[in-house]
């Protein structure tokens, strides 16, 4: 390792090691915490009460509960719906369409739309939650602008369609990321290649499907990886907007973990859910990395 290193690295390696120590410590600490979660998931540790001190190992019981008790599977389903519609369908497609159409627009229009989309993205989650709940309350924007003119009875939209609103909020908040990434991806397609396709007689649609999309395939996979995982473990906006409710209608897994750990106080069970989530995320990552791999 050092033998093949550049001479200045050899000269300074004690310094390099010293300067890396904080990072090594932090990473070690993170690994330790993760190990802790794993260990907890095999115990009946509780946040309060007798089990907070006199806990014991209970084997795989917590993991069995994931499938036998109500809660986990329902929450997983909500998370899957939330993730699929808000990231893969919503952010991904909208981000791509915006990136594709805005490229050819004049500067002012382009930058104002870009700014609007990015404004949602950089907005703190709690403020976003605040805005979205205000938008959908009776006499809120949606009510005044759409429901009342159409004489649809004013209702509490957040109570009636909580999952839909949470999905919309996440699309609103996260599309900017896909947009920025796809803008960069489209810029990476050399102009001469799409011109060559034009000379070859490809229509704009054909250029999109035969040239552009295959050429940015790896960007698409990377983006999908980022946004699915991001949405899968997303917590603050949903928590601040609905708290997982009403009932468990928007109780995605991250909120389920929070509730089980801190409201119910079952730290062992909560940890098992976390580990299960991690496994699901790992499987998704492997799936996307496979997609990324180029054909031989």
């Amino acid at each position: 390792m050092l033998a093949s290193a550049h001479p200045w690295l050899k000269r300074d390696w004690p310094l390099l090691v010293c300067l890396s120590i904080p990072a090594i410590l932090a990473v070690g600490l993170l690994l330790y915490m993760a190990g802790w979660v794993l260990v907890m998931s095999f115990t009946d540790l509780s946040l309060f009460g007798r089990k907070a001190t006199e806990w014991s190992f209970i084997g795989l019981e917590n993991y069995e509960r994931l499938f036998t008790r109500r809660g986990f599977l329902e929450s997983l389903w909500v998370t899957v719906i939330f993730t699929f519609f808000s990231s893969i369908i919503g952010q991904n497609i909208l981000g791509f369409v915006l990136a594709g159409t805005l490229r050819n627009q004049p500067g002012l229009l382009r930058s104002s739309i870009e700014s609007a989309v990015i404004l949602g993205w950089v907005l703190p989650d709690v403020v976003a939650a605040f805005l979205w709940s205000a938008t959908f309350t009776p006499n809120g924007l949606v009510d005044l602008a759409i429901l009342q003119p159409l004489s649809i009875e004013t209702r509490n939209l957040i109570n009636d369609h909580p999952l839909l609103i949470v999905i919309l909020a996440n699309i609103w908040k996260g599309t900017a990321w896909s947009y920025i990434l796809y803008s960069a991806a489209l810029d990476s397609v050399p102009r001469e290649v799409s011109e060559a396709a034009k000379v070859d007689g490809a229509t704009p649609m054909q250029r999109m499907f035969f040239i552009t999309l295959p050429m940015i395939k790896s960007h698409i996979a990377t983006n999908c990886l980022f946004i699915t995982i991001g949405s899968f473990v997303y917590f603050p906006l949903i928590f601040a907007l609905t708290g997982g409710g009403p009932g468990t209608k928007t109780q995605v897994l991250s909120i389920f973990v929070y509730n089980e750990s801190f409201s119910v106080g079952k730290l062992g069970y909560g940890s098992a859910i976390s580990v299960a989530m991690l496994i699901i995320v790992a499987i998704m990552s492997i799936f996307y990395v496979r997609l990324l791999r180029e054909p031989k």
Partner: protein
Amino acid sequence: MQDTQKSYTTAIILALIALIWVSPFSWLAVNAVNPEADGSLSWPNSVGFQNFAEAMSGQAGGQFMNSLFLSILTSTLTVIIAVFAAYPLSRLKIPGRNAFLWALVLLRMLPATGVIVPIFFTAKSTGMLNLVGVAIAITMLNLPFTLLLLKNFFDTVPVELEEAAYSEGASFFQIMRNVMLPMSRAGIAVVWFFSFTTAWNEFLLPLIFVRKTADFPMSVGLFASFGEHSSVNYGFLASYSILYAVPAVAVYFLLRRNLNTGFAGVGVKG
């Protein structure tokens, strides 16, 4: 002819999307400037900035400073730690370093709500249940991702530049300061921005770590005041929200140019 018509239609549709996108802000705007705000979406009878004055003074103003302290501490810590560790990761052929980094990033995907339990206990036992503890925790949680990101940026700096600097007698710090850092400015901007905004937005950690209202950062402060449903001061909430959002938005638009190249790099390198 057809083309111009088509592009007009596209422009109008795009403008409409932008309008829909910013429309939720209307509520925030009218309530923030209305001294008698009642939380409804209506034109204010009078316009004034009393709400902002209220949101900047007393405990609320202190919470702004708390957020600023937390974010600057976190981003500084993250950038310094990540820069020095990413450099050897990029330049030394440590076997399996990529697999290792990806494993770490995956570990970071542990839901924050899950890993927060051990973090909480550790902080409690070391007396770190305060904003410094939150900053350290965020730094630790973000480190894998920032390390990977910076390493990828360092990888793109041609080693010839370092060779040139070395042959001219530059020390390690001079190589860092004059070659690596300027050449990967976009990457550092992304890392700084990423850690600043995570800290600025972070909600869960301070919610659990900090107990006293005076120590709240703005995220928890805002949540706490709009969680109390009894008699809500909407004008205060709206102006407080705006004050809370402004730095996050400003940081983005100030760094925009660097960030766009940086994010492009993230996309290309995965």
